[in-house]
């Protein structure tokens, strides 16, 4: 997988809208954090940048803090403020 897109990032709601994509492949090194992943995505999709303060994140279907580790093979989701109901 070296050099390949080894993490699947799912985008929802306003984040998908701003990025113009619902799914992005990202390459991360073995000991990356969510924050590093975020920075890598923002470089490619700068329109996401203003969402930084309001986005939540999930790793493999569970909420995760920005310092959380991300490993190759993980599924990461960028979650704007939820608005169900």
């Amino acid at each position, binding site marked *: 997988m070296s050099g390949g897109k080894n993490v699947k990032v*799912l985008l*929802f*709601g*306003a*984040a998908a*809208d*701003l990025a113009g994509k619902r799914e992005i492949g990202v390459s991360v090194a073995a000991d990356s954090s969510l924050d590093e992943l975020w920075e890598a995505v923002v470089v490619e999709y700068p329109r996401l940048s203003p*969402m930084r303060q*309001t986005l939540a994140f*999930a790793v493999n*279907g*569970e*909420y995760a803090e920005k310092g959380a580790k991300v490993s190759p093979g993980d599924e990461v*989701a960028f*979650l*704007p*403020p*939820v*608005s*169900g*109901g």
Partner: protein
Amino acid sequence: MFRVVEGEINVAAMISSAQRPDSGAISTFIGTTRVDESDGASVEYLEYEAYRPMADEKLAEVGAEIRGKWDVRHVAITHRLGKVAPGEASVAIVVASPRRGPAFEASRYAIERIKEIVPIWKREVWSDGYVWVGSQIGTRGAK
């Protein structure tokens, strides 16, 4: 009992399932599409999307929280995805309890928690553009 669905919510069936001899009270909450108006425009429909299966799991988590807090004998939550026309139901919560106090409190708690932890997003589609509720991002006012 905790479901994200694509089509209309069958509230009557949800209520029937909640009718039990051990309970004396059923509290139901239904969220419906409201037509707001502003700047000469109005809401035409809402459109929901979810991160699945996390949304299903979080709905079940809301149910588990309720069972931990109140004496409820039945809890069901259904959230609809896709377009929801004015007056139609986007979410239905049905709680049965031996007594009315817990039934009311639990159903109120459920809708508040859904709005906090369940990864579902709503887009208001107006006659002059759309807005992602919560993010306030969209095409309205971008004219």
